[in-house]
């Protein structure tokens, strides 16, 4: 099965992200592949191992996003493509989804598009569904397992109420939940291969589309209001005494 995995480069989840002088900064924390996207790659590689075909990683971003794509290659993806264009600066989810859908069509012969649950920077969690909608493909979100069979795929989805089994024809799009299993580490051979790989860069002109106006703007990003909390330490004469005091305090808060 030929699969495209759409990935994003983001600041590491351990980064202390703050707004400083109107700019979002994360100190010297590294930029990494969005952690949720690793699960999408894992799902794609498992499918490829079962069915053959090619896994291609695609990312929209600046030149630095090549590093995230190299991680994808080192994990075992066969190809990587960077889509980079200054006209995509400030693009909203819809504009990015349109670019990804066009790139998936240009790649040709793609039967499945895989996405992470959401990117840990913008926390939008809509790009997969929007790309699927542009392509006219069914969207199966938050899959915890996926198998190829017959003319399509069978997935299990994790939803709030439980687990749903869904069958879909191909082509289709999925987003992948953490329940798929631990993503593999890049292999030594994979890292060597990735370090030598030339990653093609596509512009909007290469895709034959113009820059779309963004429907949503983010004029301002601020630090959250400080949590004004005065911590009261509870001590006492042994665990029972402490527990009694703490229970009283909590009941006084009237939150139960």
């Amino acid at each position, binding site marked *: 099965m030929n699969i495209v995995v759409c990935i994003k480069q983001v600041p590491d989840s351990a980064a202390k992200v703050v707004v400083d002088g109107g700019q979002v900064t994360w100190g010297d924390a590294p930029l990494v592949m969005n952690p949720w996207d690793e699960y999408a790659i894992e799902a794609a590689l498992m499918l490829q191992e079962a069915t053959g075909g090619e896994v291609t990683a695609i990312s929209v971003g600046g030149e630095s996003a090549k590093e995230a794509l190299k991680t994808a290659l080192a994990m075992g993806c066969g190809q990587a493509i960077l889509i980079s264009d200054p006209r995509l600066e400030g693009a909203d989810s819809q504009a990015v989804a349109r670019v990804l859908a066009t790139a998936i069509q240009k790649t040709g012969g793609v039967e499945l598009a895989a996405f992470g649950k959401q990117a840990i920077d913008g926390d939008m969690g809509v790009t997969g569904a929007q790309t699927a909608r542009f392509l006219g493909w069914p969207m199966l979100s938050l899959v915890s397992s996926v198998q190829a069979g017959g003319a399509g795929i069978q997935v299990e989805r994790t939803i709030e109420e439980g687990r749903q089994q869904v069958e879909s024809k191909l082509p289709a799009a999925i987003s992948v939940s953490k329940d798929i299993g631990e993503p593999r580490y890049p292999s030594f051979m994979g890292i060597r291969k990735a370090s030598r790989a030339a990653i093609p860069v596509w512009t909007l002109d290469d895709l034959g589309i113009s820059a779309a106006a*963004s429907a949503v703007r983010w004029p*301002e990003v601020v630090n959250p209001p400080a949590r004004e909390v005065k911590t009261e330490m509870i001590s006492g004469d042994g665990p029972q005494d*402490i527990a009694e005091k703490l229970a009283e305090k909590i009941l006084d808060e009237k939150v139960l």
Partner: protein
Amino acid sequence: MSGKILVYIDQFHGAALPASWEVLSAAYTLAEKLGNSVAALALGKDAKAVADQTFQYGPEEVYYCDDPSLVDYRAEPYTAVIVKAAKDLNATVLLFPTTTRGRELAAMCAIDLGGGVMPDVTAVDVEGGKVVASRPVYAGKLVAKTVCETQPAILTTRVRAFKKPQGDASRSGTPVRLEAVMPESEIRSKVAGYAQAEGGVSLTDANVIVSGGRGVANNPALTPPAGMDDKQAEIWRAQQGFKLVGDLAGVLGGAVGASRAAVDAGYIPYAHQVGQTGKIVSPDLYIACGISGAIQHQAGMRSSKVIVAINKDADAPIFKLARYGVVGDLYAILPSLTEAFRKRLGK
């Protein structure tokens, strides 16, 4: 401005999700500022009953569609009905609760309607005729003010961020039936089965969450059954600790959460993880037991109303967020705390 604010009432197997009522609050705020009225829409099996119930929470009009093609939730036929209703009603704003379904429906409707999507918002307003919303980003480490430049504006509201409107059982109305839009033959997926989640309160809806971290395994006094290797013994210890966490959650009618460290160590399934790569929660009471408070955990729970931390390490960062802190052994404190609440709450 003429037009309507359309609210999607999310339901599962005929029961509306409480988060759906909260969405109506956000709708009323926007309706007042835009001079719009509020309409609600329920889809799926027995959607009429959900629609009937929806009147209690105050919308002027309620629509529903109960069709064989909508019995099992699938994004495409649901989107098609919502998009048609939004066009027919001249919707200026579409609102959904931030659930798995709500988020993906909002995403897809935005494509069909050419509107902007703002998922998981915590506050809404109107400036210069445009819908603006606050969205936590970077897992709540920052807050983005977002503006929708096109119509309709499409938002999902974070669960528990808006207050549920007071229901009034005497309010009623006649919901309007809509037709399905996509014939079954055009729908490319099929739901083959469903298994309900194992009992317990869902983390995102919970009023109270009691969470455990690495510290729950830290009881050398316990002797694991013979024949376990070190890792098995560690997990066994952790499970004894999580039993105490679960007992307290049980007495408080709450849910059990966990830190990423506890999940990664194999102590408890991922479904319980609170934090940047788990669930983002904001209960009224969050009790963190044996959790140091890594930045990515804080991101998932810092908007909880009252935070209580129990930890052996007095320097644990979690105490900086906590209203009440106890430096001590959770194995000693938790059973006493459970007992203290059992007594006081008459359970």
